């Protein structure tokens, strides 16, 4: 009957020992270091926070709320993000908008960022492109910081403005409205010309 003797590691010899492998690793470090000192190779290390890493545009960082072209909040308080949120971190209080073309708007819109898991389901559920996960990824802070992001904070974020700029204003299509609707803005619902519901 054939058997394998496992009492001794067949790989075990002086070449796989501690000293030899350490020297091998140090050699690699020394070679890379020398190359980088003489500019023969570029470093992959980002000198954060002086230099910021450029993530892809699709990166899902902290949320922001998009605006209509006139600067008002785009959200219509439909609660679909709050319903879809697996962490239940979104709190919305809806109210009657003075603008009849909008009808409904969020009086309060809050995200408990400590509960958020950055899954992006809110962004996916939103029918009016009002919430997006932004490029901001460094959100560390002390315990006394306010960890519930309010509507005003989500709308006016310097980090978002700096990185996204004009993209913060949603260009999503808007419908025309009936004359009876007393509003400066078009209706929020999408133009529907075929193509399924």
């Amino acid at each position, binding site marked *: 009957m054939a058997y394998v003797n496992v009492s001794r590691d067949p790989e075990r010899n002086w070449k796989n020992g501690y000293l030899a492998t350490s020297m091998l690793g140090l050699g690699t470090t020394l070679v890379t270091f020398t190359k980088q000192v003489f500019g023969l190779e570029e470093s992959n290390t980002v000198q954060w926070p002086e230099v910021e890493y450029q993530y892809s545009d699709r990166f899902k960082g902290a949320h922001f709320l998009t605006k209509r072209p006139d600067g008002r909040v785009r959200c219509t308080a*439909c609660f679909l993000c709050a*319903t879809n949120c697996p962490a239940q971190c979104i709190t919305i209080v809806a*109210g009657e908008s003075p603008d009849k073309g909008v009808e409904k708007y969020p009086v309060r819109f809050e995200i408990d960022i400590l509960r958020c898991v950055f899954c992006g389901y809110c962004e996916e559920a939103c029918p009016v492109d009002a919430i997006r996960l932004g490029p901001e990824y460094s959100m560390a802070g002390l315990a006394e910081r306010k960890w519930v992001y309010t509507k005003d904070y989500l709308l006016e974020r310097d980090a978002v403005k700096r990185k996204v700029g004009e993209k913060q204003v949603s260009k999503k299509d808007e419908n025309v409205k*009936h004359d009876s*609707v007393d509003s400066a803005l078009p209706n929020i*619902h999408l133009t529907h010309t*075929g193509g399924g519901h």
Partner: protein
Amino acid sequence: MSNQVTLSINNQPVTVPAGSTIIEAAQKAGVSVPHFCWHPGLSIAGVCRFCMVKVEGMPKLQIACNTPATEGMKVDTLSDEVKETHKWALEFHLINHPLDCPICDQAGECELQNYYMKVGKYQAQMEDQKVLKPKALDVGDTLVLDTERCILCSRCVRFEDEVTKTSTLGIFNRGDQATIGTYPERKIKHNYSYNLADICPVGAFTAKDFRFKCRVWFLKETKTVCPGCSTGCSVNLFQNSSQREYYRLKPRHNAEVNGHWMCDTGRTMYEHLNASSRLASPQLEGQSISSAAAMQAVTDAAKGLAADKVALVLTAQFTNEEYVASLSALKSVLKSAPKVFIWRDESEKSDDFDGILFRGDRNPNTRGMMDVLKEHGITATVLKGDYAPLAAAAPELTLILAPEVESAYPNLAKAVGRFSELKKTVYFGNALTDSAKKLWLRIPVKTFAEKSGTFVNFNGVAQKLKANPAVFANVKGVDEYFGDLSRLAQSAV
């Protein structure tokens, strides 16, 4: 000739009274036929053309709501032909529908949405722009009308014509320009307006009272009884259970009591249930104490008193079980029955009736209370604007089962002021008015939404309440408090 007919629906035999329609027979057989314009409480319009069924021997599909069932009729609701018809009928309804479901309050309980998921699921073939119509119209103190969402089923028009007979609404213009609207210079002004929001199969009518407050899929319903008046309509009470917040009441069909409807006054019966309008803990001379300490104080006060020095003031807003519990507890503690008074509001006109549902007697359980008192052989004195009989009895201890729905007692503050002049008054209720602060002891009690029990309406129909979890965990029902009283009195002996 028999006045019953037997037909078969999907090969399932069903017997219905002669003159019934196919849709009624289908309902009896447990077969659901999609419909918009048909409503069991209204006349037949047959305008939505959605309830198409195949009847054997008829060349074309027939509408189930307006085709009388006949003996031996063979109806089919499952064939591909019927399904295709439903699908395309639905597309016609959605041609000009704005699909603003995200901001529409009906989303989640919308029949268009439900039927789209059930029988629709097609790719729209409409290429033209939707017709735009007036939105967010103010049609009265209680309702907002969005004519774009309307599918012209005319249920609301028929409701106004047939149930309230106010005829405020009509369909104007023709073809794709047809809109629902109020006649010029007229608004929906009657006590049954929220029923329009209920029967509207889409979100054309939305209730101002509920608009934008909560999405319907967060709400859970409880089958209970409206405490608004002695009619005692069967209702569903809607609560957001994660917030412990009540949002609305809707009528529940009960042929014996309210049919399909309920009044707007009854719709406000959720307001006093939420924490903000309630007393959270017992108040002894203005100081918050525990329920146990409160009942101990009542027991101490009752100890050694003769039965005629204790007065029990009842209002007809409690369940039969609570009256029985309080009377029998007092009987066992005092060795005989106390003096019993019935508190009615002085403005009450108990025989008033609006001809539909709402009654002048704003207490849900007058009949039940009278029955319990009769059973216990007690003759009660009625206090209605005149509190002299109570003062004349000079009670050492007065126990008041105060009205839970305080809006039904417009002169509550005055009455509470008079009660506070008495020696020791124990007020089982939520009064938060200033005059209530002078009362000796105030004990909050469970509301109709939080207790099980029985209400007997004006007509003698007994209906059960169903309990939800209490808003305040420490607040007990009257029956539990009086149970504590008799237990404490016994252990003291």
